Protein backbone atom coordinates (compact mmCIF):
# COMPACT_ATOMS: atom_id res chain seq x y z
CA UNK A 1 0.00 0.00 0.00
CA UNK A 2 2.92 2.30 0.80
CA UNK A 3 4.38 1.56 -2.61
CA UNK A 4 1.07 2.44 -4.19
CA UNK A 5 1.00 5.74 -2.34
CA UNK A 6 4.53 6.51 -3.45
CA UNK A 7 3.65 5.82 -7.07
CA UNK A 8 0.53 7.98 -6.84
CA UNK A 9 2.58 10.80 -5.34
CA UNK A 10 5.11 10.41 -8.14
CA UNK A 11 2.28 10.75 -10.64
CA UNK A 12 0.97 13.87 -8.98
CA UNK A 13 4.46 15.36 -8.77
CA UNK A 14 4.98 14.76 -12.46
CA UNK A 15 1.70 16.51 -13.22
CA UNK A 16 2.55 19.43 -10.98
CA UNK A 17 5.96 19.71 -12.58
CA UNK A 18 4.16 20.13 -15.88
CA UNK A 19 2.17 23.01 -14.49
CA UNK A 20 5.26 25.03 -13.60
CA UNK A 21 6.15 25.51 -17.29
CA UNK A 22 7.56 28.87 -18.34
CA UNK A 23 8.33 31.43 -15.69
CA UNK A 24 8.35 35.09 -16.75
CA UNK A 25 10.45 37.83 -15.31
CA UNK A 26 8.52 40.96 -14.32
CA UNK A 27 7.97 43.26 -17.29
CA UNK A 28 8.60 46.94 -16.95
CA UNK A 29 7.00 49.16 -19.56
CA UNK A 30 9.06 51.94 -21.12
CA UNK A 31 6.14 54.16 -22.11
CA UNK A 32 6.84 53.44 -25.77
CA UNK A 33 4.05 51.05 -26.75
CA UNK A 34 5.81 49.88 -29.92
CA UNK A 35 9.08 49.11 -28.17
CA UNK A 36 7.20 47.39 -25.35
CA UNK A 37 5.29 45.30 -27.88
CA UNK A 38 8.50 44.28 -29.62
CA UNK A 39 10.03 43.32 -26.27
CA UNK A 40 6.93 41.36 -25.29
CA UNK A 41 7.04 39.51 -28.59
CA UNK A 42 10.69 38.63 -28.05
CA UNK A 43 10.03 37.08 -24.65
CA UNK A 44 6.75 35.41 -25.58
CA UNK A 45 6.74 31.70 -26.51
CA UNK A 46 7.45 31.18 -30.21
CA UNK A 47 3.86 30.07 -30.77
CA UNK A 48 2.55 33.48 -29.64
CA UNK A 49 5.02 35.72 -31.48
CA UNK A 50 2.70 36.49 -34.39
CA UNK A 51 -0.05 37.54 -31.99
CA UNK A 52 2.24 40.06 -30.30
CA UNK A 53 3.61 41.25 -33.60
CA UNK A 54 0.07 41.76 -34.95
CA UNK A 55 -0.88 43.88 -31.95
CA UNK A 56 2.33 45.87 -32.03
CA UNK A 57 2.07 46.45 -35.78
CA UNK A 58 -1.39 47.99 -35.34
CA UNK A 59 -0.04 50.28 -32.62
CA UNK A 60 2.94 51.21 -34.82
CA UNK A 61 0.68 52.01 -37.78
CA UNK A 62 -1.59 54.20 -35.65
CA UNK A 63 1.46 55.97 -34.21
CA UNK A 64 2.87 56.64 -37.71
CA UNK A 65 5.82 54.33 -36.95
CA UNK A 66 5.56 52.89 -40.43
CA UNK A 67 8.97 51.22 -40.63
CA UNK A 68 8.26 49.30 -37.42
CA UNK A 69 4.81 48.35 -38.71
CA UNK A 70 6.26 47.07 -42.00
CA UNK A 71 8.89 44.96 -40.31
CA UNK A 72 6.41 43.43 -37.88
CA UNK A 73 3.80 42.72 -40.54
CA UNK A 74 6.37 41.20 -42.90
CA UNK A 75 7.39 38.88 -40.09
CA UNK A 76 3.75 37.87 -39.51
CA UNK A 77 3.05 37.37 -43.21
CA UNK A 78 6.18 35.22 -43.51
CA UNK A 79 4.76 32.93 -40.82
CA UNK A 80 1.29 32.87 -42.37
CA UNK A 81 2.67 31.95 -45.79
CA UNK A 82 5.03 29.31 -44.40
CA UNK A 83 2.52 27.40 -42.30
CA UNK A 84 2.18 24.50 -44.74
CA UNK A 85 3.09 20.92 -43.99
CA UNK A 86 3.72 18.95 -40.80
CA UNK A 87 4.11 20.95 -37.66
CA UNK A 88 4.83 19.44 -34.24
CA UNK A 89 2.95 22.14 -32.34
CA UNK A 90 -0.07 21.77 -34.60
CA UNK A 91 0.09 17.99 -34.19
CA UNK A 92 0.16 18.25 -30.41
CA UNK A 93 -2.84 20.61 -30.57
CA UNK A 94 -4.80 17.82 -32.25
CA UNK A 95 -4.15 15.20 -29.54
CA UNK A 96 -6.59 14.53 -26.70
CA UNK A 97 -4.29 16.06 -24.10
CA UNK A 98 -3.08 18.89 -26.37
CA UNK A 99 -4.55 22.36 -26.30
CA UNK A 100 -5.57 24.22 -29.44
CA UNK A 101 -3.65 27.19 -28.08
CA UNK A 102 -0.41 25.19 -28.31
CA UNK A 103 -0.38 25.68 -32.10
CA UNK A 104 1.54 28.54 -33.66
CA UNK A 105 -0.83 31.48 -33.67
CA UNK A 106 -1.61 32.95 -37.07
CA UNK A 107 -5.13 34.04 -36.19
CA UNK A 108 -8.51 33.41 -37.69
CA UNK A 109 -9.02 34.49 -41.31
CA UNK A 110 -10.25 38.00 -40.38
CA UNK A 111 -7.02 38.54 -38.42
CA UNK A 112 -4.84 37.32 -41.30
CA UNK A 113 -6.82 39.51 -43.68
CA UNK A 114 -6.01 42.53 -41.55
CA UNK A 115 -2.28 41.78 -41.59
CA UNK A 116 -2.35 41.90 -45.40
CA UNK A 117 -4.68 44.89 -45.45
CA UNK A 118 -2.40 46.97 -43.23
CA UNK A 119 0.67 45.88 -45.21
CA UNK A 120 -1.11 46.86 -48.42
CA UNK A 121 -1.72 50.37 -47.05
CA UNK A 122 1.98 50.64 -46.21
CA UNK A 123 3.02 49.51 -49.70
CA UNK A 124 0.73 52.12 -51.23
CA UNK A 125 2.23 54.76 -48.92
CA UNK A 126 5.62 53.78 -50.39
CA UNK A 127 4.35 54.35 -53.93
CA UNK A 128 3.95 50.65 -54.74
CA UNK A 129 0.27 50.22 -55.64
CA UNK A 130 0.97 46.87 -57.35
CA UNK A 131 2.39 45.38 -54.18
CA UNK A 132 -0.49 46.95 -52.26
CA UNK A 133 -2.86 45.23 -54.68
CA UNK A 134 -0.99 41.95 -54.15
CA UNK A 135 -1.65 42.29 -50.40
CA UNK A 136 -5.34 43.05 -50.93
CA UNK A 137 -5.60 40.00 -53.19
CA UNK A 138 -3.84 37.78 -50.67
CA UNK A 139 -6.14 39.11 -47.95
CA UNK A 140 -9.17 38.18 -50.01
CA UNK A 141 -7.71 34.69 -50.59
CA UNK A 142 -7.52 34.17 -46.83
CA UNK A 143 -11.28 34.64 -46.69
CA UNK A 144 -11.90 32.33 -49.64
CA UNK A 145 -12.52 29.09 -47.77
CA UNK A 146 -15.64 30.03 -45.79
CA UNK A 147 -18.00 27.12 -45.23
CA UNK A 148 -20.80 28.92 -47.03
CA UNK A 149 -19.53 30.12 -50.40
CA UNK A 150 -21.71 33.19 -50.35
CA UNK A 151 -19.50 34.58 -47.56
CA UNK A 152 -16.21 33.65 -49.25
CA UNK A 153 -13.90 36.51 -50.30
CA UNK A 154 -16.64 39.02 -49.59
CA UNK A 155 -14.63 41.95 -48.25
CA UNK A 156 -15.92 44.96 -50.15
CA UNK A 157 -12.95 47.20 -49.52
CA UNK A 158 -10.38 44.63 -50.64
CA UNK A 159 -12.00 44.25 -54.04
CA UNK A 160 -12.59 47.98 -54.33
CA UNK A 161 -8.93 48.72 -53.58
CA UNK A 162 -7.74 45.89 -55.86
CA UNK A 163 -9.56 47.59 -58.72
CA UNK A 164 -8.47 51.06 -57.62
CA UNK A 165 -4.80 50.04 -57.64
CA UNK A 166 -5.30 48.52 -61.10
CA UNK A 167 -6.93 51.74 -62.32
CA UNK A 168 -4.02 53.73 -60.91
CA UNK A 169 -1.64 51.42 -62.77
CA UNK A 170 -3.58 52.09 -65.97
CA UNK A 171 -4.97 48.58 -66.18
CA UNK A 172 -8.54 47.40 -65.97
CA UNK A 173 -10.00 47.36 -62.48
CA UNK A 174 -13.61 47.05 -63.54
CA UNK A 175 -14.01 43.37 -62.55
CA UNK A 176 -12.88 44.06 -59.01
CA UNK A 177 -15.15 47.12 -58.82
CA UNK A 178 -18.06 45.00 -60.00
CA UNK A 179 -17.37 42.42 -57.28
CA UNK A 180 -17.10 45.14 -54.63
CA UNK A 181 -20.39 46.68 -55.76
CA UNK A 182 -22.09 43.29 -55.66
CA UNK A 183 -21.06 42.74 -52.04
CA UNK A 184 -21.56 46.17 -50.55
CA UNK A 185 -24.47 47.03 -48.32
CA UNK A 186 -23.52 50.73 -48.27
CA UNK A 187 -25.18 52.16 -51.34
CA UNK A 188 -23.34 52.55 -54.64
CA UNK A 189 -19.57 52.69 -54.46
CA UNK A 190 -18.07 55.64 -56.35
CA UNK A 191 -16.25 55.16 -59.64
CA UNK A 192 -12.47 55.24 -59.48
CA UNK A 193 -10.99 58.69 -59.75
CA UNK A 194 -7.58 58.05 -61.29
CA UNK A 195 -6.60 61.64 -60.61
CA UNK A 196 -7.34 61.44 -56.91
CA UNK A 197 -4.07 62.10 -55.11
CA UNK A 198 -5.09 61.77 -51.45
CA UNK A 199 -6.19 58.28 -50.49
CA UNK A 200 -7.54 58.00 -46.96
CA UNK A 201 -7.86 54.66 -45.20
CA UNK A 202 -10.17 54.89 -42.22
CA UNK A 203 -10.85 52.49 -39.34
CA UNK A 204 -13.04 52.82 -36.28
CA UNK A 205 -14.82 50.86 -33.57
CA UNK A 206 -13.50 47.80 -31.76
CA UNK A 207 -13.06 44.44 -33.41
CA UNK A 208 -14.67 41.13 -32.50
CA UNK A 209 -13.84 39.51 -29.16
CA UNK A 210 -13.15 35.78 -29.07
CA UNK A 211 -14.90 33.76 -26.37
CA UNK A 212 -14.86 30.05 -25.61
CA UNK A 213 -18.36 28.65 -25.11
CA UNK A 214 -19.79 25.22 -24.33
CA UNK A 215 -19.46 22.85 -21.37
CA UNK A 216 -15.70 22.53 -21.86
CA UNK A 217 -15.22 25.88 -23.61
CA UNK A 218 -14.75 23.93 -26.82
CA UNK A 219 -16.71 26.26 -29.07
CA UNK A 220 -15.09 29.39 -30.47
CA UNK A 221 -17.59 32.22 -30.54
CA UNK A 222 -17.37 35.96 -31.13
CA UNK A 223 -18.79 38.88 -29.22
CA UNK A 224 -19.21 42.34 -30.69
CA UNK A 225 -16.57 44.77 -29.57
CA UNK A 226 -17.81 48.06 -28.14
CA UNK A 227 -18.06 50.41 -31.09
CA UNK A 228 -19.50 53.82 -30.26
CA UNK A 229 -18.23 55.23 -33.56
CA UNK A 230 -20.47 54.11 -36.41
CA UNK A 231 -19.33 56.36 -39.24
CA UNK A 232 -16.75 58.98 -40.14
CA UNK A 233 -16.54 62.16 -42.17
CA UNK A 234 -13.22 63.07 -43.79
CA UNK A 235 -12.54 66.64 -44.88
CA UNK A 236 -9.65 68.17 -46.77
CA UNK A 237 -9.33 71.31 -48.89
CA UNK A 238 -13.04 72.20 -48.45
CA UNK A 239 -14.09 68.76 -49.63
CA UNK A 240 -15.87 66.27 -47.40
CA UNK A 241 -16.48 62.56 -47.91
CA UNK A 242 -18.56 60.29 -45.72
CA UNK A 243 -16.50 57.24 -44.82
CA UNK A 244 -19.31 54.79 -44.11
CA UNK A 245 -18.31 51.28 -43.00
CA UNK A 246 -17.48 49.24 -46.09
CA UNK A 247 -16.41 46.20 -44.10
CA UNK A 248 -17.33 44.99 -40.64
CA UNK A 249 -14.85 42.61 -39.01
CA UNK A 250 -17.49 41.26 -36.60
CA UNK A 251 -19.64 40.29 -39.58
CA UNK A 252 -16.61 38.73 -41.26
CA UNK A 253 -15.64 36.76 -38.13
CA UNK A 254 -19.13 35.38 -37.66
CA UNK A 255 -19.90 34.37 -41.23
CA UNK A 256 -17.04 31.94 -41.71
CA UNK A 257 -18.90 28.82 -40.60
CA UNK A 258 -17.37 25.90 -38.73
CA UNK A 259 -13.64 25.28 -38.74
CA UNK A 260 -12.12 21.80 -39.09
CA UNK A 261 -10.56 22.22 -35.65
CA UNK A 262 -14.08 22.74 -34.24
CA UNK A 263 -14.88 19.12 -35.13
CA UNK A 264 -11.65 17.98 -33.45
CA UNK A 265 -12.49 19.98 -30.32
CA UNK A 266 -16.03 18.60 -30.32
CA UNK A 267 -14.55 15.08 -30.44
CA UNK A 268 -12.23 15.91 -27.55
CA UNK A 269 -15.17 17.31 -25.55
CA UNK A 270 -17.15 14.12 -26.21
CA UNK A 271 -14.20 11.99 -25.10
CA UNK A 272 -13.82 14.09 -21.95
CA UNK A 273 -17.52 13.80 -21.16
CA UNK A 274 -17.51 10.00 -21.72
CA UNK A 275 -14.38 9.33 -19.65
CA UNK A 276 -15.76 11.55 -16.90
CA UNK A 277 -19.08 9.67 -16.85
CA UNK A 278 -17.33 6.28 -16.93
CA UNK A 279 -15.10 7.45 -14.07
CA UNK A 280 -18.11 8.56 -12.02
CA UNK A 281 -19.91 5.27 -12.61
CA UNK A 282 -16.80 3.22 -11.76
CA UNK A 283 -16.12 5.16 -8.55
CA UNK A 284 -19.72 4.90 -7.35
CA UNK A 285 -20.00 1.21 -8.20
CA UNK A 286 -16.59 0.50 -6.69
CA UNK A 287 -17.48 2.31 -3.48
CA UNK A 288 -20.76 0.39 -3.13
CA UNK A 289 -19.06 -2.95 -3.75
CA UNK A 290 -16.22 -2.17 -1.38
CA UNK A 291 -18.64 -1.29 1.43
CA UNK A 292 -21.03 -4.18 1.04
CA UNK A 293 -18.70 -7.10 1.87
CA UNK A 294 -16.08 -7.76 4.52
CA UNK A 295 -12.42 -6.93 4.04
CA UNK A 296 -10.41 -9.09 1.60
CA UNK A 297 -13.59 -10.47 -0.01
CA UNK A 298 -13.60 -10.67 -3.82
CA UNK A 299 -16.29 -7.94 -4.01
CA UNK A 300 -14.09 -5.69 -1.94
CA UNK A 301 -11.17 -6.29 -4.32
CA UNK A 302 -13.31 -5.66 -7.39
CA UNK A 303 -14.71 -2.55 -5.72
CA UNK A 304 -11.20 -1.21 -5.02
CA UNK A 305 -10.17 -1.98 -8.60
CA UNK A 306 -13.19 -0.14 -9.92
CA UNK A 307 -12.41 2.81 -7.66
CA UNK A 308 -8.89 3.01 -9.09
CA UNK A 309 -10.18 2.57 -12.63
CA UNK A 310 -12.73 5.32 -12.02
CA UNK A 311 -10.03 7.59 -10.65
CA UNK A 312 -7.82 6.91 -13.67
CA UNK A 313 -10.72 7.59 -16.02
CA UNK A 314 -11.44 10.87 -14.23
CA UNK A 315 -7.77 11.83 -14.51
CA UNK A 316 -7.72 11.04 -18.21
CA UNK A 317 -10.89 13.08 -18.58
CA UNK A 318 -9.44 16.07 -16.79
CA UNK A 319 -6.22 15.82 -18.83
CA UNK A 320 -8.24 16.19 -22.03
CA UNK A 321 -8.32 19.81 -23.06
CA UNK A 322 -10.91 20.70 -25.68
CA UNK A 323 -10.85 24.41 -24.92
CA UNK A 324 -10.97 26.57 -28.05
CA UNK A 325 -8.07 28.90 -28.69
CA UNK A 326 -9.10 32.43 -27.80
CA UNK A 327 -5.76 34.12 -28.35
CA UNK A 328 -6.58 37.11 -30.48
CA UNK A 329 -5.36 40.19 -32.27
CA UNK A 330 -7.25 42.23 -29.73
CA UNK A 331 -6.70 45.79 -30.91
CA UNK A 332 -8.34 45.50 -34.31
CA UNK A 333 -11.02 47.94 -35.42
CA UNK A 334 -14.54 46.89 -36.28
CA UNK A 335 -15.18 49.01 -39.37
CA UNK A 336 -13.00 49.69 -42.40
CA UNK A 337 -13.58 52.50 -44.84
CA UNK A 338 -11.89 54.54 -47.54
CA UNK A 339 -12.14 57.93 -49.22
CA UNK A 340 -10.24 59.47 -52.14
CA UNK A 341 -9.77 63.17 -52.85
CA UNK A 342 -8.36 65.29 -55.64
CA UNK A 343 -6.42 68.07 -53.91
CA UNK A 344 -4.05 70.73 -55.32
CA UNK A 345 -0.37 70.54 -54.29
CA UNK A 346 0.61 72.33 -51.09
CA UNK A 347 0.04 72.16 -47.36
CA UNK A 348 -3.37 70.93 -46.23
CA UNK A 349 -5.17 69.94 -43.08
CA UNK A 350 -7.15 66.70 -43.07
CA UNK A 351 -9.92 66.32 -40.51
CA UNK A 352 -11.55 63.06 -39.51
CA UNK A 353 -14.76 63.22 -37.48
CA UNK A 354 -15.92 59.95 -35.98
CA UNK A 355 -19.64 59.86 -35.28
CA UNK A 356 -21.97 57.67 -33.27
CA UNK A 357 -25.22 56.14 -34.50
CA UNK A 358 -27.09 59.42 -33.91
CA UNK A 359 -24.59 61.35 -36.02
CA UNK A 360 -22.97 63.08 -33.03
CA UNK A 361 -19.22 63.67 -33.30
CA UNK A 362 -17.48 61.57 -30.65
CA UNK A 363 -13.87 62.04 -31.72
CA UNK A 364 -12.08 64.40 -34.06
CA UNK A 365 -8.59 64.02 -35.45
CA UNK A 366 -6.59 66.48 -37.50
CA UNK A 367 -3.54 65.70 -39.61
CA UNK A 368 -1.23 67.99 -41.55
CA UNK A 369 -0.57 66.82 -45.08
CA UNK A 370 2.01 68.03 -47.52
CA UNK A 371 1.15 67.33 -51.14
CA UNK A 372 4.08 67.36 -53.56
CA UNK A 373 3.75 68.97 -56.96
CA UNK A 374 4.67 65.71 -58.64
CA UNK A 375 1.80 63.38 -59.37
CA UNK A 376 2.39 61.09 -56.43
CA UNK A 377 -0.42 59.69 -54.32
CA UNK A 378 -0.38 60.59 -50.67
CA UNK A 379 -1.79 57.76 -48.60
CA UNK A 380 -3.20 58.62 -45.20
CA UNK A 381 -4.25 56.22 -42.47
CA UNK A 382 -6.72 57.44 -39.85
CA UNK A 383 -7.93 55.51 -36.83
CA UNK A 384 -10.29 56.49 -34.04
CA UNK A 385 -7.97 54.77 -31.60
CA UNK A 386 -5.27 56.58 -29.68
CA UNK A 387 -2.73 53.99 -30.85
Amino acid sequence: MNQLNTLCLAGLSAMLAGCVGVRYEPFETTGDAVQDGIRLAARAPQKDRVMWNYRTAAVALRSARFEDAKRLLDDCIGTIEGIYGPDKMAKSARTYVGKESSKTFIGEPYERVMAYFYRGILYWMDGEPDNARACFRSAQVHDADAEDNSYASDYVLLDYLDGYASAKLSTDGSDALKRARANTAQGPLPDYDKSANVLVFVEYGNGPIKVAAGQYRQKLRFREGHSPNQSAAISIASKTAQAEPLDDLYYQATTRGARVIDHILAGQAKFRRSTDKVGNAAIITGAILANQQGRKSSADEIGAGLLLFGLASKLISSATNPRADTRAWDNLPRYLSFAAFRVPPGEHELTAEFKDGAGQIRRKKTLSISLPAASKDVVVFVSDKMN
Partner: protein
Amino acid sequence: MNMQMNSWSVALSLVLIGIGTGCQTGVRNPSGVGVTVLQPDEQGFVAGTGIESQDLVRVANKMSRGILGVPEINGVQGVPRVVLDPVINETRFPINKDIFLTRIRVALNSQAAGKVRFLARSRMQALEREREMKRKGQVTSSTDPNANAFKGADFFLTGKLQSLTTSTQRGKSDYILYSFQLIDANTSDIVWEDFDEIKKQGVVDAVYR
Protein backbone atom coordinates in the same frame (compact mmCIF):
# COMPACT_ATOMS: atom_id res chain seq x y z
CA MET B 1 -2.47 -11.09 -6.15
CA ASN B 2 -4.66 -10.02 -9.08
CA MET B 3 -5.89 -7.05 -7.11
CA GLN B 4 -2.28 -6.05 -6.35
CA MET B 5 -1.32 -6.30 -10.03
CA ASN B 6 -4.31 -4.20 -11.05
CA SER B 7 -3.45 -1.56 -8.49
CA TRP B 8 0.13 -1.47 -9.78
CA SER B 9 -1.07 -1.09 -13.37
CA VAL B 10 -3.42 1.72 -12.49
CA ALA B 11 -0.83 3.53 -10.41
CA LEU B 12 1.73 3.16 -13.21
CA SER B 13 -0.82 4.57 -15.63
CA LEU B 14 -1.25 7.54 -13.31
CA VAL B 15 2.47 8.20 -13.35
CA LEU B 16 2.59 7.93 -17.14
CA ILE B 17 -0.39 10.27 -17.54
CA GLY B 18 1.27 12.68 -15.15
CA ILE B 19 4.52 12.62 -17.06
CA GLY B 20 2.66 12.82 -20.38
CA THR B 21 0.75 15.92 -19.38
CA GLY B 22 3.70 17.40 -17.56
CA CYS B 23 5.95 17.38 -20.61
CA GLN B 24 3.84 19.77 -22.72
CA THR B 25 6.07 22.83 -22.48
CA GLY B 26 5.07 24.04 -25.96
CA VAL B 27 8.68 24.76 -26.85
CA ARG B 28 9.85 23.50 -30.20
CA ASN B 29 13.50 22.79 -30.79
CA PRO B 30 14.36 23.95 -27.28
CA SER B 31 18.07 23.78 -27.97
CA GLY B 32 17.73 25.62 -31.30
CA VAL B 33 18.57 24.63 -34.85
CA GLY B 34 21.94 25.37 -36.40
CA VAL B 35 22.17 27.60 -39.46
CA THR B 36 21.74 25.61 -42.66
CA VAL B 37 23.35 26.88 -45.85
CA LEU B 38 21.17 26.19 -48.88
CA GLN B 39 21.71 26.74 -52.56
CA PRO B 40 19.38 29.50 -53.79
CA ASP B 41 18.03 27.16 -56.46
CA GLU B 42 16.89 24.50 -54.01
CA GLN B 43 13.76 24.50 -51.93
CA GLY B 44 14.34 24.93 -48.23
CA PHE B 45 12.47 23.24 -45.42
CA VAL B 46 10.60 26.50 -44.84
CA ALA B 47 8.50 26.97 -47.93
CA GLY B 48 5.32 28.63 -49.04
CA THR B 49 3.35 28.72 -52.26
CA GLY B 50 4.67 32.15 -53.24
CA ILE B 51 7.67 33.39 -55.19
CA GLU B 52 10.87 32.01 -53.71
CA SER B 53 14.58 32.07 -54.48
CA GLN B 54 14.54 28.85 -56.49
CA ASP B 55 11.85 30.32 -58.74
CA LEU B 56 13.83 33.51 -59.20
CA VAL B 57 16.99 31.63 -60.14
CA ARG B 58 15.16 29.28 -62.51
CA VAL B 59 13.21 32.03 -64.27
CA ALA B 60 16.12 34.47 -64.49
CA ASN B 61 18.48 31.82 -65.91
CA LYS B 62 15.93 30.78 -68.50
CA MET B 63 15.30 34.39 -69.56
CA SER B 64 18.97 35.36 -69.77
CA ARG B 65 19.68 32.31 -71.97
CA GLY B 66 16.74 33.25 -74.15
CA ILE B 67 17.84 36.86 -74.57
CA LEU B 68 21.32 35.78 -75.66
CA GLY B 69 19.79 33.78 -78.49
CA VAL B 70 17.88 36.72 -79.95
CA PRO B 71 19.34 37.76 -83.36
CA GLU B 72 18.79 41.43 -82.53
CA ILE B 73 21.20 40.99 -79.63
CA ASN B 74 23.50 38.25 -80.80
CA GLY B 75 23.85 38.97 -84.50
CA VAL B 76 24.13 42.73 -84.78
CA GLN B 77 27.14 44.94 -85.30
CA GLY B 78 27.83 47.09 -82.29
CA VAL B 79 26.58 46.58 -78.80
CA PRO B 80 22.85 47.01 -78.18
CA ARG B 81 21.88 49.09 -75.17
CA VAL B 82 19.12 47.84 -72.91
CA VAL B 83 17.09 49.67 -70.27
CA LEU B 84 15.27 47.76 -67.58
CA ASP B 85 11.64 48.71 -67.14
CA PRO B 86 10.13 47.59 -63.80
CA VAL B 87 8.31 44.29 -63.81
CA ILE B 88 4.54 44.52 -63.37
CA ASN B 89 3.35 42.45 -60.44
CA GLU B 90 -0.21 41.22 -60.87
CA THR B 91 0.13 38.28 -58.49
CA ARG B 92 -1.16 38.09 -54.95
CA PHE B 93 2.38 38.13 -53.62
CA PRO B 94 4.12 41.38 -52.85
CA ILE B 95 7.66 41.23 -54.22
CA ASN B 96 10.70 43.34 -54.75
CA LYS B 97 10.05 44.02 -58.42
CA ASP B 98 13.63 44.83 -59.28
CA ILE B 99 14.96 41.49 -58.18
CA PHE B 100 14.05 39.56 -61.37
CA LEU B 101 15.54 42.13 -63.70
CA THR B 102 18.61 42.49 -61.50
CA ARG B 103 19.15 38.73 -61.62
CA ILE B 104 18.73 38.67 -65.42
CA ARG B 105 21.02 41.67 -65.90
CA VAL B 106 23.73 40.24 -63.68
CA ALA B 107 23.50 36.86 -65.41
CA LEU B 108 23.80 38.49 -68.85
CA ASN B 109 26.65 40.75 -67.79
CA SER B 110 28.59 37.89 -66.30
CA GLN B 111 27.91 35.29 -68.98
CA ALA B 112 27.96 37.43 -72.10
CA ALA B 113 30.07 40.44 -71.28
CA GLY B 114 30.22 42.78 -74.24
CA LYS B 115 27.31 41.35 -76.24
CA VAL B 116 24.82 43.59 -74.52
CA ARG B 117 25.06 46.67 -72.32
CA PHE B 118 22.60 47.86 -69.74
CA LEU B 119 22.03 51.54 -69.09
CA ALA B 120 22.00 52.69 -65.48
CA ARG B 121 18.79 54.71 -65.71
CA SER B 122 18.06 54.21 -62.02
CA ARG B 123 21.23 56.19 -61.30
CA MET B 124 20.41 59.15 -63.55
CA GLN B 125 20.12 61.63 -60.70
CA ALA B 126 23.64 60.92 -59.48
CA LEU B 127 24.99 60.78 -63.04
CA GLU B 128 23.47 64.15 -63.92
CA ARG B 129 24.87 65.69 -60.75
CA GLU B 130 28.34 64.37 -61.63
CA ARG B 131 28.08 65.71 -65.19
CA GLU B 132 26.98 69.09 -63.87
CA MET B 133 30.00 69.26 -61.56
CA LYS B 134 32.27 68.38 -64.49
CA ARG B 135 30.67 71.08 -66.63
CA LYS B 136 31.20 73.63 -63.88
CA GLY B 137 34.81 72.53 -63.54
CA GLN B 138 34.30 71.49 -59.95
CA VAL B 139 35.74 68.05 -60.74
CA THR B 140 38.03 66.85 -63.52
CA SER B 141 36.80 65.17 -66.68
CA SER B 142 38.61 62.84 -69.06
CA THR B 143 36.18 63.61 -71.91
CA ASP B 144 34.32 66.70 -73.08
CA PRO B 145 31.69 67.25 -70.36
CA ASN B 146 29.51 69.36 -72.67
CA ALA B 147 28.92 66.52 -75.08
CA ASN B 148 25.79 64.51 -74.34
CA ALA B 149 27.33 61.08 -73.74
CA PHE B 150 24.34 59.50 -72.05
CA LYS B 151 23.20 56.76 -74.39
CA GLY B 152 19.66 56.10 -75.49
CA ALA B 153 18.06 52.67 -75.25
CA ASP B 154 17.87 50.27 -78.17
CA PHE B 155 15.71 47.87 -76.22
CA PHE B 156 13.55 47.75 -73.12
CA LEU B 157 13.57 44.59 -71.04
CA THR B 158 10.46 44.16 -68.94
CA GLY B 159 8.15 41.53 -67.60
CA LYS B 160 4.91 40.72 -65.94
CA LEU B 161 4.03 38.32 -63.13
CA GLN B 162 0.48 37.00 -63.02
CA SER B 163 -1.13 34.39 -60.83
CA LEU B 164 -4.11 32.15 -60.30
CA THR B 165 -5.02 31.00 -56.82
CA THR B 166 -7.23 28.23 -55.55
CA SER B 167 -8.02 28.22 -51.86
CA THR B 168 -9.96 25.60 -49.96
CA GLN B 169 -10.13 24.65 -46.30
CA ARG B 170 -7.32 22.15 -46.92
CA GLY B 171 -4.80 24.55 -48.36
CA LYS B 172 -3.84 26.76 -51.23
CA SER B 173 -2.61 26.32 -54.75
CA ASP B 174 -0.84 29.09 -56.60
CA TYR B 175 0.08 29.17 -60.28
CA ILE B 176 2.41 31.96 -61.33
CA LEU B 177 3.13 32.94 -64.92
CA TYR B 178 6.40 34.79 -65.41
CA SER B 179 6.61 36.48 -68.80
CA PHE B 180 9.39 38.72 -70.04
CA GLN B 181 9.73 40.81 -73.18
CA LEU B 182 12.45 42.62 -75.06
CA ILE B 183 10.92 45.62 -76.81
CA ASP B 184 12.58 47.60 -79.60
CA ALA B 185 12.72 51.17 -78.28
CA ASN B 186 12.45 52.68 -81.76
CA THR B 187 9.71 50.57 -83.30
CA SER B 188 7.91 49.14 -80.23
CA ASP B 189 8.34 45.69 -81.80
CA ILE B 190 8.48 42.88 -79.28
CA VAL B 191 11.65 41.23 -80.56
CA TRP B 192 11.72 38.50 -77.97
CA GLU B 193 9.35 37.07 -75.42
CA ASP B 194 9.50 34.03 -73.19
CA PHE B 195 7.72 32.70 -70.16
CA ASP B 196 8.05 30.27 -67.32
CA GLU B 197 5.30 28.94 -65.14
CA ILE B 198 5.37 27.42 -61.69
CA LYS B 199 2.55 25.87 -59.75
CA LYS B 200 2.74 25.12 -56.05
CA GLN B 201 0.32 23.85 -53.54
CA GLY B 202 0.45 23.48 -49.82
CA VAL B 203 -1.78 21.70 -47.35
CA VAL B 204 -2.01 23.15 -43.88
CA ASP B 205 -2.47 21.17 -40.68
CA ALA B 206 -6.11 20.61 -39.73
CA VAL B 207 -5.77 22.88 -36.71
CA TYR B 208 -5.40 25.88 -39.05
CA ARG B 209 -8.40 25.02 -41.21
